[in-house]
């Protein structure tokens, strides 16, 4: 992706299944000035094929706090893509 003068750079972090999907734990990403969480997700989503499930229940943290889709990003932000968490012990069986 070319970098324009009006782009800014954020650091994207992948966890859980997303880390496997993108085959890396984090990467710098150039996004348009004024980009939101939603814009960024769309950009990333466009780079993968057919993995719709993982995108459905995703949460995003910006600088280590949960952030809604309309959140505006800034140069240097840490943007983490978080699949549904599964700490604690194992959950119930789905039957």
């Amino acid at each position, binding site marked *: 992706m070319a970098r324009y003068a009006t782009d800014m750079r954020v650091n994207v*972090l992948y*966890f*859980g*299944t997303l880390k*496997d999907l993108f085959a890396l734990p984090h990467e710098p990403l150039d996004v348009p000035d004024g980009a939101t*969480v*939603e814009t960024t*997700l*769309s950009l990333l*989503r466009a780079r993968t094929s057919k993995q*719709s499930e993982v*995108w*459905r*229940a*995703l*949460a*995003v*943290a910006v600088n*280590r*706090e*949960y*952030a*809604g*889709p*309309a*959140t505006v990003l800034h140069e240097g932000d840490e943007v*983490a893509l*978080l*699949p*549904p*968490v*599964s*700490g*604690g*012990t*194992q*959950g119930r*069986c*789905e*039957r």
Partner: protein
Amino acid sequence: MRVELGTAIIPSAQVLEEMKGSTDGAVCVFDGIVRDNTCGRMTLFLDYEAYEEMALSQMRVLAAEALTRFPIRDVALLHRLGRLEVGETSVLIVVASAHRGAAFDACRWLIDTLKKTVPIWKKEHFADGVVWAAGEPFPDEIVAARETRETHE
């Protein structure tokens, strides 16, 4: 308030004893341990990983919120990371309180909320394969992808 996230074995029994205070009448403990199976599928071990800085700060927020929400005296909240064998503790919650109702309520609220909001994931290593455990859905207020999904699908 005692909040810990790391790879060391969680000393449940010791934490329980250390949490008791002279004004407490009730201590409620939730000790989450690694089962030998998930829905009948044999588990070899689990591998927990976290967005560590965020997970730890979220755990601190939860512990502090429990102390505000419930009439309890103290809370311990420990989660382990890395490879865990069957029978080992992955999460330990101890709530100390003058009365039992608040101790139970706070303990349960802590584990229920932790499991939905603290960024920790586990890979289940079964005898016949490896999968990321399916998490519970995020609470509505923190699902970032909802509008994206509706707009773009």
